[in-house]
């Protein structure tokens, strides 16, 4: 019986642990006594059962009521310290806001999964070769892959294609971005049409079109009766069969296509009956969906086998080429190294801002904890549990963090709205789909809570560690130990200054570089040129008609008053489009597994180099004698000449391109034709338009005066030739260069400068807070020093020096960190070195000035201390 009594008591002791510590301390023994009384009077089994239920029911209630108490207490304390709360919330809002906005931006660029069901099961298939990793796939290869693959439940094939859309017979055709897709495209992605239907097997070569939600909204005013309507797509009558839902934003996160067209229509749209028959034309993107039974590894292995047999069976077209399969997510990072780096950089920098913000709040809490040390010591002395106090302190941090997080979210929503409103200056449906969604909310909530732990726990532990007796004896002056230069608060400020030093140097480098880029010429002219893009194929033209059209158009434009010259080129330098092509350089020894090199090219008409002020270092321009029947020629840039004809003259050299032997007749000076970056210029080839046909070309008109003034006359000439021809991307090269070519550089600069400014603001607040606090704690000491003869200037100087000392340490550490870190920027820097001396000199000076400002006001207050009052107050 005694055994039963003991084990029943032990059981009850265990149950009591469910209650909050305070409650247990207060009533535990009484409740145990009560339990023993009942045990003597009541039957054992029901009693134990009842007790168990009771504890499970009432213990959570006690915890909850304690939490409510803590929250009430916190809110009351906060209401009493509005200054403290304002600074803490502002700091947190900036930290959380910056991180939420940066996350949303990164999410939109890279991190967000595709808007299809089970996006993790989507894989990419690439043609891989040493010259072109992650290459697209040819249509015949796709057919073979599809018939042999057992690991993929379906394959979505797609290819971007420019298309024109004419909604009604009498409306003007508009240029749209089309996507040629196979009929199982949407079934593979498992997305259904919002209206009508997607493609069926027998649609493959039918003129039917599915609209994106955006296109439906913009061009059909969201008319639900659009299904079954006939429209003109690239001058061919199509029937609208479906509209995609708004939630489906396409396979590309940034470019959103308008129209989906069956791939079987490509031969008609491209006016090339054999468009789908070339195994060496690799221009289709493949997205596969794994079957439920197979993993990405298995599919990868299978694809390697299929790739090997394709190479065996097609030695000419598929030599040295394998198939590569990877998950869509992995592929995104693998093929987008620069984007991934930018995302990592932005997230890292905004993380640093958050750290600075947390350091601010931790510092505020620490200074308050000093003031509260007495209160806490007393509570500890009268027996309040440490766990209970810790809980109270953590509740405070969490509440601060949640309020700060809410404010941060508000800030982030403005930033995100701004990011979402950014449009590339292009008629393409391009935008950064940054939205404040649930993912961003979850991120800002977790960021807030993490920061609560970061800034809350250090002060909490420090106050609990304090020794009760000394704290009480020492009275209010506790912890003013001036001897400890590196106390926690000072360390935090040094860290803040170091971080903002780093952020500011990175910002400084980017600002300087951006300014330099805007001033420097990229190697070709960026003024007095009017651009217009057109594609007569979209209006049903074949090659001879297109050539005749361009010839006639150039002649008419050249004769307009105010026009100096006019040329056509397929691509605008630094534009959003580019093409590359496999090239073999005769006499150049390639690696064994390499059969060609991939080089960017641009077909241009005669006079192009003159018009674009892209000088030739040697040789001649294309001229009217370069025709379809004359010797094929090419102009290479200096970089290409140096790389492939080392120690020889490239002039007269031969390259093999598209099965033709091209003679190099000119060498152009290196210019940044493809990207504005610090990287060395890559090889580039210009080809004569007469010998290399492309339907979609951009008219470049060189003007005497303001080029925008010629828009109407030039457009009128085009209309006179063909009123139905759609013309797109009409802008001056000044606009194009400023807003288009420099778009990415500008965006990166703006983001990082904003982050840097926030870091600076936070650390200035931090420095000010610490010095102001130190002065207020030392009022008595300063009073004594002044009483024994120190003058105001000495006091002022000593406080200023204290602040500058802290800032100096931070600046030195930040400088070292910046020297190590600035290398990551080199991809984004064009003209400025990653260790630009002037930036590395100017930014510390700026920070010293800011620190002086932050320290001056507390120092002046210190110098105005009246020794009599200071001593009397003790």
């Amino acid at each position, binding site marked *: 019986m005694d055994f039963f009594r003991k084990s029943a008591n032990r059981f009850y002791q265990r149950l009591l642990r469910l209650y909050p510590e305070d409650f247990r301390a207060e009533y535990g023994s009484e*409740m145990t*006594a009560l339990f023993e009384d009942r045990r003597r009077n009541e039957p054992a089994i029901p009693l134990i059962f009842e007790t168990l239920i*009771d504890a499970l029911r009432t213990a959570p209630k006690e915890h909850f009521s304690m939490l409510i108490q803590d929250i009430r207490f916190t809110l009351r304390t906060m209401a009493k310290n509005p200054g403290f709360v304002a600074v803490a919330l502002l700091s947190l809002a900036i930290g959380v806001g910056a991180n939420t906005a940066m996350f949303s931006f990164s999410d939109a660029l890279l991190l967000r999964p595709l808007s299809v069901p089970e996006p993790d099961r989507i894989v990419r298939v690439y043609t891989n070769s040493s010259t072109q990793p992650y290459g697209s796939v040819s249509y015949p290869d796709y057919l073979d892959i599809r018939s042999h693959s057992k690991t993929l439940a379906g394959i979505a094939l797609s290819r971007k294609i420019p298309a024109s859309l004419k909604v009604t017979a009498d409306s003007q055709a508009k240029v749209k971005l089309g996507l040629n897709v196979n009929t199982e495209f949407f079934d593979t992605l498992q997305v259904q049409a919002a209206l009508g239907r997607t493609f069926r097997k027998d649609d493959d070569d039918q003129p039917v079109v599915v609209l994106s939600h955006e296109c439906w909204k913009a061009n059909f005013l969201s008319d639900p009766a659009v299904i079954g309507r006939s429209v003109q797509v690239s001058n061919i009558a199509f029937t609208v069969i479906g509209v995609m839902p708004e939630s489906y934003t396409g396979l590309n996160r940034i470019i959103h296509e308008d129209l989906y067209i069956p791939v079987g229509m490509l031969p008609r749209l491209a006016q090339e009956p054999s468009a789908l028959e070339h195994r060496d034309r690799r221009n289709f993107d493949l997205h596969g969906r794994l079957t439920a039974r197979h993993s990405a590894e298995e599919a990868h292995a299978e694809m390697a086998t299929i790739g090997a047999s394709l190479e065996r069976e097609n030695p000419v077209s598929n030599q040295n080429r394998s198939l590569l399969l990877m998950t869509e997510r992995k592929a995104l990072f693998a093929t987008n190294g620069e984007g991934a780096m930018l995302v990592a950089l932005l997230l890292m920098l905004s993380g640093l801002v958050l750290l600075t913000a947390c350091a601010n709040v931790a510092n505020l809490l620490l200074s308050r904890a000093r003031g509260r040390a007495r209160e806490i010591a007393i509570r500890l002395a009268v027996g309040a549990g440490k766990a209970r106090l810790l809980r109270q302190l953590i509740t405070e941090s969490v509440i601060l963090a949640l309020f700060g997080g809410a404010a941060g979210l508000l800030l982030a929503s403005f930033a995100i709205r701004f990011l979402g409103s950014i449009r590339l200056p292009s008629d393409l449906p391009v935008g950064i789909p940054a939205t404040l969604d649930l993912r961003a909310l979850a991120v800002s909530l977790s960021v807030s809570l993490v920061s609560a732990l970061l800034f809350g726990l250090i002060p909490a532990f420090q106050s609990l560690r304090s020794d009760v007796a000394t704290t009480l004896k020492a009275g209010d002056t506790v912890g003013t130990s001036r001897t400890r230069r590196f106390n926690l608060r000072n360390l935090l400020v040094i860290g803040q200054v170091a971080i903002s030093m780093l952020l500011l140097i990175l910002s400084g480098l980017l600002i300087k570089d951006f300014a330099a880029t805007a001033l420097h010429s990229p190697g070709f002219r960026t003024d007095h040129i009017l651009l217009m893009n057109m594609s007569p194929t979209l209006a049903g033209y074949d090659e001879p008609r297109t050539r005749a059209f361009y010839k006639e158009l150039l002649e008419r434009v050249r004769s307009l008053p105010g026009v100096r010259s006019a040329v056509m080129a397929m691509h605008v330098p630094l534009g959003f489009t580019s093409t590359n092509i496999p090239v073999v350089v005769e006499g150049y020894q390639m690696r064994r597994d390499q059969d060609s090199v991939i080089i960017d090219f641009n077909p241009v008409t005669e006079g192009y180099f003159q018009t674009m002020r892209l000088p030739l270092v040697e040789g001649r321009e294309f001229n009217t004698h370069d025709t379809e029947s004359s010797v094929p020629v090419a102009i290479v840039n200096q970089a290409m000449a140096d790389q492939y004809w080392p120690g020889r003259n490239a002039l007269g050299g031969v390259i093999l391109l598209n099965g033709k032997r091209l003679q190099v007749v000119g060498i152009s000076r290196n210019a940044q034709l493809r990207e504005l970056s610090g990287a060395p210029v890559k090889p580039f080839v210009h080809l004569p338009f007469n010998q290399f046909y492309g339907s979609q070309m951009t008219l470049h008109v060189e003007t005497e005066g303001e080029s925008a003034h010629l828009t109407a006359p030039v457009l009128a000439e085009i209309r006179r030739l063909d009123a139905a021809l759609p013309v797109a991307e009409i802008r001056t090269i000044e606009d194009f260069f400023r807003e288009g070519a420099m778009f990415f550089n500008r965006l990166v600069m703006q983001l990082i400068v904003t982050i840097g400014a926030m870091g600076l603001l936070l650390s200035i607040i931090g420095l000010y807070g610490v010095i102001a606090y130190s002065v207020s704690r030392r009022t008595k000491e300063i009073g004594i020093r002044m009483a024994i003869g120190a003058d105001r200037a000495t006091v002022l100087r000593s406080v200023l020096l204290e602040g500058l000392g802290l800032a100096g340490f931070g600046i030195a550490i930040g400088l070292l960190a910046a020297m190590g870190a600035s290398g990551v920027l080199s991809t984004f820097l064009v003209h400025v070195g990653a260790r630009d001396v002037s930036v590395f000199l100017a930014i510390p000076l700026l920070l010293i000035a800011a620190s002086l400002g932050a320290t001056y006001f507390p120092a002046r207050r210190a110098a105005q201390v009246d020794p009599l009052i200071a001593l009397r107050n003790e």
Partner: protein
Amino acid sequence: MDHSLPLPPATFHVLIALWEGDRHGYAIMQDVAERTNGKVKLSPGTLYGSIKRMLELGFIQEVRPGAAEQSDADERRRYYRATPLGRTVAQAEATRLAEVLEQAKSHGLLPQIG
């Protein structure tokens, strides 16, 4: 005081149990069970949760056990007494309940008892 009404049932029962004299926790529990013929049984968790809140609100106070109770002294037991505020609140609650009951009666809600 009005904002403390209506009282939670457990609180009201504890105040009734303490109306005639000081009691410890177990005695309160037994009193409530006896008075209600076992219909209302305050569990220990509910009892001490109520005691804690009533102490905070000043409805009851802790007292030294009187001479009579000292004989069966278990020093872990604490005795509680209703404060004047607690008594006023209990009376107000009783009045409120009586009024409610009166209205119920006048509308014929109650079956005639005895």
